């Protein structure tokens, strides 16, 4: 249960697929136009409930509650061996074999 005042993330379909603009590639036309935004809950709610929130700019938004205390999970990715290989090739190209 998320409480009023909790920091949450909501999701809402702005335009269902059939209401989208005509000028779209086929793959995009088949899917809805969606929105995600964060704010403080204006009422108690469970994940999956329709809720209202207040965003940091002070706007009221509504949508489906999908996350409480949302966090960013961007990171530096998994190891990419080609990046290391680029280093070796670049240093060799500039400084010669002794760079290895």
């Amino acid at each position, binding site marked *: 249960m998320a409480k009023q005042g909790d920091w949450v993330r909501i999701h809402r379909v702005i335009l269902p697929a059939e209401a989208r*603009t005509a000028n779209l590639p086929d*793959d995009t036309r088949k899917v809805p136009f969606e*929105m995600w935004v964060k704010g403080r809950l204006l009422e108690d709610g469970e994940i999956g409930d329709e809720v209202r929130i207040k965003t940091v*700019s002070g706007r009221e938004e509504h949508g489906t509650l999908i996350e409480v205390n949302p966090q960013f999970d*961007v990171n*530096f990715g998994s*190891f990419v061996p080609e990046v290391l290989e*680029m280093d070796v090739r670049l240093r060799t*190209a500039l400084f010669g074999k002794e760079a290895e």
Partner: protein
Amino acid sequence: MKDLSYSAVMGRKNEIIKDAMGVDYRRYEREGIIFDYEAMMADCGYSLEDHIRIQRSVNVGNTPVFELHNLTALARKLAAPGKGARIFIKDEASNPAGSFKERRAAASVYHAKKLGYKGVIAATSGNYGAAVASQAAMQGLKCIIVQECYDSHAKGQPEIIEKARKCEALGAEVLQLSVGPELFYQVLLLLEETGYFNASLYSAFGVSGIETLGWELGHQFMEKYGRHPDAVVCANAGGGNLTGTARGLIKAGCPAKVIGAAVDLTGLHMASDEAFNRKSFTTAHTGFGVPYATNPDHSDVPRSAARPLRYMDRFVTVKEGEVFYITEAVATLEGMEKGPAGNTSLTAAFALAQQMDQDEIIVAQETEYTGAGKGINPQLSFARSNGIELKFGDPDEEVAGRNIVFPADPSLLKARDLDMDELRRKFIRRAVKGLDRTLSDAELAFLAEETRSTVDFVKATLR
């Protein structure tokens, strides 16, 4: 109660934009297809001196230029005898939010505040969002950034999510959307709902704010090296970066050639849900660079201040694998970690330097910040997880959305010229589309000016 349907809101577009910018674009329309570009630029009310003053007051600009000695040495090893210009960058990453885009944001936010708007809204998935958020924080306005961020599986580009994190860190509300041009509809809805200022990337305030970059380049090289640079390379997407920089160079009396550069994403549809996460560059690519050069007026303002064909001497493309390779070269040979997209112009400069004499100077006029999600490793890791093949080879064999080819040897890295006359012809044909009459002399002259060509060229195109 206003009608909030798609067609009703789009129908109110001009009225909404007028209220959200305080600019009536009809003032610049002239006879037929003509509009008065310089009047629009002058009317924004900020001279170059004003922009310099505003930017200094909010810690923007006056960024250093660095000579890249090792990249220059490597270019000379690959070039013919006597060839290999000195390569420089302008370290725009040292702006408060990490990119040149703050030059664009500073005056927009300043102007919004002066006119009494309580907040600003910008539609951007790129560095401009962080720039507007930073300026809004500094100047005490509210800020909403609208991003195209996710595909229909709610999978987001790591670079764009990092930008959302940064915007939130700087106090902005971030509204994230799935793929599609209806983003503009959402922005119009928000402008109407909040009464905030539209900090468009394409306004005269924004584009003229970049003139300081070109102006600084002109002066910095004279002061430090006693001469002007011979070529300045600008990443070219929406066209504002190149337009503003070129105008600033002209104002500084700098005769450098102005070269646009974009990452070649030929074949990927920019509004495609499936293609969205198959690209590793979300800006500075041909998917924006070409259509905005040949049809600048399809942005979020009726008349764009970004008109790159007026200023561009050449427009070259580079491959995704080449930009990642140069990003790694900047780290391992120059000791600086920078964001990949910000190295698009440097990648072109590395190839172009090899065509120039050793006593010449070429400048890549930007760098950008890097971090989690927005860097060579996270972006390549993401590409691989989406089934993109990563390999060494000849970058000419790279197919956007299928593979990323790193040069097996630095000699394979190239800058590939787009046909400028073909771009000009596209622009001219687009400008007269649906027009069932012959053009007046003034209209022909206008198109020649818009495309930096001649009346004869325009006539030959229309024949």
